[in-house]
């Protein structure tokens, strides 16, 4: 058993995946759809962080490129849903 930088990165990745699991409960509970979009945006940020941590853990550079692509594309999704909610002008329903 060794304890070096790789193991520390793995622990950080574990904490981030715990944060993803906690945020998923807000998608389940959230009274309005805006709450769910907030939870999805949080998960996006955490997934980018997890990709950076695991990319350094694997020591392969291709994996960090995925994080860059992912950060840009998830932003497009968030903006798209926000534009739709802005135009629809009705109260977000509860479930």
């Amino acid at each position, binding site marked *: *058993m060794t304890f070096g930088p790789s193991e520390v990165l793995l622990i950080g990745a574990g904490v981030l995946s715990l944060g*993803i699991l906690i945020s998923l409960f807000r998608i*389940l509970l959230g009274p309005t*759809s805006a709450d769910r979009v907030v939870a999805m945006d949080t998960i996006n940020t955490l997934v980018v962080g997890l990709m950076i941590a695991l990319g350094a853990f694997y020591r392969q550079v291709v994996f960090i490129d995925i994080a860059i692509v992912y950060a840009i594309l998830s932003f497009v999704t968030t903006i*798209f*849903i926000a534009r*739709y909610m802005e135009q629809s002008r009705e109260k977000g329903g509860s*479930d």
Partner: protein
Amino acid sequence: MDWSLLYDAIHVVILLGIVAASVLVVRMKDLVSAAVALAAASLLLSLEFFILQAPDVAIAEAAVGAGLTTAIYIFAIKGTRRREEY
């Protein structure tokens, strides 16, 4: 303590998240909330491909799943009523 156990634990957490988000997609009555849950499921699926060390599939899933399908679903929801009734 064996560190590969923690690696497997992350893997299991991501898989549980995919299952939970997919169940939410079916159960939601509000269509925009269902689209958001579908986006969450597909981004966790992209992370799963990442952990299985398939970078090309992960990029394709991120582009198609997180970017394109959500936009198409929102376009489709624009043409319907927002709430599902049955």
